[in-house]
């Protein structure tokens, strides 16, 4: 009996809730109707398509994008969205036409040949300016204590400095985000250095570890690169590896025994962009700057917590001429050098 009564009362309760739900639904639909009429227009501003730029996991990539976003929105009148995405998925998205451009590519010769050379869904958007440098680094205080660490032979001798519980009984070599393709395991093996490569799993974890060691002035050796705004905060020195040669580049990944190849950082865009937004395509090809310029914007974003817009405006205020030259069709642009094999 009690159950029956309960279910009866429950019916009225349900009806009331249904009432609330219906009302909410009506409000939502009404609002949605208003929104779609308004929103339909916003997807295309004045008939101009929205531009999407891929932001990769390092701060320099964001620095490129905020400045490009500022210039495109302010001077060319297109809406720009920044989408956070990893490097390889960004190529796929560009090929599908879902991503407009990537403004900092490191290597990626397989993707270069697959999408630019063969598929033509992605096209060359010129060089970015800075040259990328990847390699083995140590804090400068460590180099001062142990000058022999200037090259790999010193590391081979002093491996005991780098022993940690995690790598014990070997020394530890700290690698970063797993999305960065590295040769460190092969290098350690082929140069017969008694180090164990430990993957930090994310750049954030790697950097936190470096910071902790740096504060305590402890020995640490790690995979690192320039341009990187952190280089303005910490003093790192590069450890020389056996010089890179094109012959070494042809080796299988597991046999590599030389330094990382030089990287000419470059830009790419979806091939459709030339037709859908020609002024943007022209600008993106001519957009180029120096590592210091990029670092200053990255620093303002990451350390000074400026908003994207503020950081871009601060740059634009000092570089009006440069922006003008990016926008002029007369400015020549540098074509991309095909990335070195094995990168």
């Amino acid at each position, binding site marked *: 009996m009690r*159950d029956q009564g*309960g*279910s009866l*009362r*429950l019916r009225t*309760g*349900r009806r*009331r*809730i249904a*009432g*609330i739900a219906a009302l909410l639904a009506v409000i*939502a639909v009404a*609002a*949605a109707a*208003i*929104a*779609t009429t*308004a*929103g339909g227009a916003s997807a295309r501003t004045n008939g101009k398509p929205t531009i999407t730029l891929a932001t990769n*996991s390092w*701060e320099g990539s964001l620095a490129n994008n905020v400045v490009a976003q500022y210039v495109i929105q302010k001077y060319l009148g297109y809406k720009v969205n920044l*989408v*956070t*995405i*990893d490097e*390889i*998925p960004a190529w*796929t*998205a560009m090929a*599908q036409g*879902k991503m407009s451009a990537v403004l900092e590519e490191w290597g990626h010769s*397989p993707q270069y040949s697959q999408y630019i050379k063969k598929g033509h869904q992605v096209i060359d958007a010129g060089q970015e300016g800075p040259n990328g440098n990847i390699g083995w680094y140590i804090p400068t205080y460590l180099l001062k204590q142990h000058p022999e660490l200037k090259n790999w032979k010193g590391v081979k001798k002093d491996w005991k400095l780098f022993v*940690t*519980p*995690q790598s*014990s009984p070997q020394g530890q070599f*700290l690698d970063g*985000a*797993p*999305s960065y*393709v590295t040769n460190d395991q092969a290098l350690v093996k082929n140069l017969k250095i008694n180090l164990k490569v*430990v*993957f*930090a*799993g*994310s750049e*954030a*974890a790697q950097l*936190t*570890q470096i*910071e*902790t060691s740096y504060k305590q002035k402890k020995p640490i050796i790690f995979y690192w690169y320039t341009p990187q705004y952190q280089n303005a905060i910490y003093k790192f020195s590069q450890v020389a590896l056996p010089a890179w040669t094109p012959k070494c580049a042809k080796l299988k*990944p597991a046999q590599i025994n030389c330094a990382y190849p030089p990287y000419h950082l470059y830009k790419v865009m979806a091939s459709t962009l030339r037709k859908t937004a020609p002024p943007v395509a022209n600008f993106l090809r001519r957009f180029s700057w120096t590592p210091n310029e990029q670092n200053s914007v990255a620093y303002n974003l*990451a*350390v000074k*917590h400026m*908003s*994207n*817009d*503020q950081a871009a405006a601060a740059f634009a205020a000092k570089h009006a001429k440069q922006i003008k030259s990016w926008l002029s069709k007369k400015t020549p642009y540098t074509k991309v050098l095909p990335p070195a094999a094995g990168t």
Partner: protein
Amino acid sequence: MSPPSAASSLASAEAPPPFLIDVGRLGRRLAPLAVGIAICIAGVALSGFHKGFPAKWVLGGGVPNWFDRADSWVQTNQSSNFFLHHIIGGLGSFLNSATNDLVSALHWLTWVGVLILAVLVAWLVGRWKTAIFAALMVSSFGILQIPNGGPNGISDMWQPAMTTLSLMAVAIVISTIIGIPLGVASAVWTPVSKTLRPILDVAQILPAFAYLVPIVVLFSIGNPAGIVATVIYAVPPLVRFTEVGIRTVRRDVIEAGEAFGATRRQILRDIQLPLAAQAIMLGLNQVIMMALSIVVIASLVGAGGLGDPVLQALQTQDLGMGAVAGLLIVFMAMWLDRTSAALGKHATRRVGVGKRLTRPQLAILWGGLLVVVLVAQYGLNLGDWPSGWGFSIVDHVTNGMNWVTNQLTHVSESLSSFLTLHVLNPLQAFLNDFPWWLMAALVGAAAWARGGPRRAILLVGCVALMGLMQAPVGYTFQGVTSYDFSAWGDAMQTLSLVIVALVLDLAVGIPLGIAAYRWRAADAVLRPILDFLQTLPAFVYLIPVVALFGVGNLAGVTASFVYALPAAVRATTLGLRAVQREVIEAGQSFGSTRWQLLLKIELPIARPYITLAVNQTILLVMAEVVVAGLVGAGGLGLDVVTGFSRSEVGLGAAAGLTMVLMGIVLDRLSQTRQTQGGQG
């Protein structure tokens, strides 16, 4: 899942007199041993005395290769294939526009409208306290600001919060549309239930990271991918709660219905469903909590909202910003949790909860809200939160966290090196050299002893499959992709992390659970902390964990430990509370002291619950193993993260599957016959 009654565990403790030789019992004792020996012999015959798993045993060209081929097929056929283009693509754009419409709708309501709506709903379904709580939580999205260049150098999180709210709403509606019918179907038709159960198991054990890769392949990045990931993660509890709710409607009530000549459909609609409403509402509440716990992961595939600042903070190692953004996710979870819990009670009409307003009264309320919104929107031109109204605690949080980290560094460093050198490394080395057949034999024997031959066959199969997931040596695909994936070795590495995290969780969690049961004060202190830990995204504490313990396995163990601790504490307390009053009083009448009672009566009776605690802790630790991959713990977690971030679909999917197999083995091994039977 309904826990076993205390009575049944008492009954099973009865044993035959020890001096009689019971042949049947001896047979039952010896069978697992025989099974173990048989597996060992078969294993040695197949692969010899081999350490680990033979590298040459690869399933049909390698499981990773299947996924790489599927991925490449999808990429080439995305625009020409009907299913991919119209069904998947259409679903994607529907989800996208639904979310965007909701975001615009919330924007149209203005901040005043959203706030009043939240308060009004909370007040209607709950008490005044619920309403005030809702008001506080919703305003926190505007008030707690982060340094991101607003007018005073800070800006509010209103917009991201509204985006997250919209994403959650769409995901929850879709989960309901899928979950409740599936739950009803599996309650009504046993075959459906039997088919669904393993699928739900897999969906619950599979780390979200593992299916992010295929989702991105199908839906590309953005809101739809985030919603799909959320639904997969959140729907299983709803299906389970609905099924259990309908199945546990008392037989006599249904018979009464049958006596009145009701058809099966009428019984379902008018008796079973209404009576199951409370269970269904509990399931919905779970959906909301699960969905909110995946907000940051959804941001990894391009869904916006509150997950973005958490990831951004991780990228720039901004402790304070990550913590504040994570806190806002916790606040949203708490708000929706309280309101939906009140709604659940309201729907099932517990006395004294919610309002009973007449129709005209309701009409006035809603009409009033509409007027307020119209005035706010068109009269006052209000929009999102007024940016000046708020402050930032980020710097204080950062300084506080840095201070704590600095104080703890010396202790944590010695602890870290002790645990790594003397526990983790030896355990890892031991498991790494462990032959696969010996592992299969141990698992088979244990499974036979706990669940009989069927479970033994299932689990031995899972162990063998774990090893078979590997990629062939020197694997390459289309000349572009190449990676090593030795599933067995990586699984053993992960197993060592899981074991250490589990032991730590139980060592800390069970005493805390007992303390919360014994002392009211301990419960009062622990409850908010556990609530907080349970909903705080793990991404927030990754950086402090690395700062304290350094990159490596121990950082991963710590992250998993923190994540699973609330479950261990809660299940212990719950188990102890379920001990019946009469049993305790009987003990007291024999003159037992408080501690005697606890050790001799309460804990033994609560044992099935503590087994459940072990089981839940294992599953949560497994779920966190992938996040552990982000702070330098190797093994399957790192494989999944690598597969995801390099778009190596085969690696990510095969490592995810290995993790599922391992999860199934650990889950089934930690369930007794009773607890599994209780799952229905």
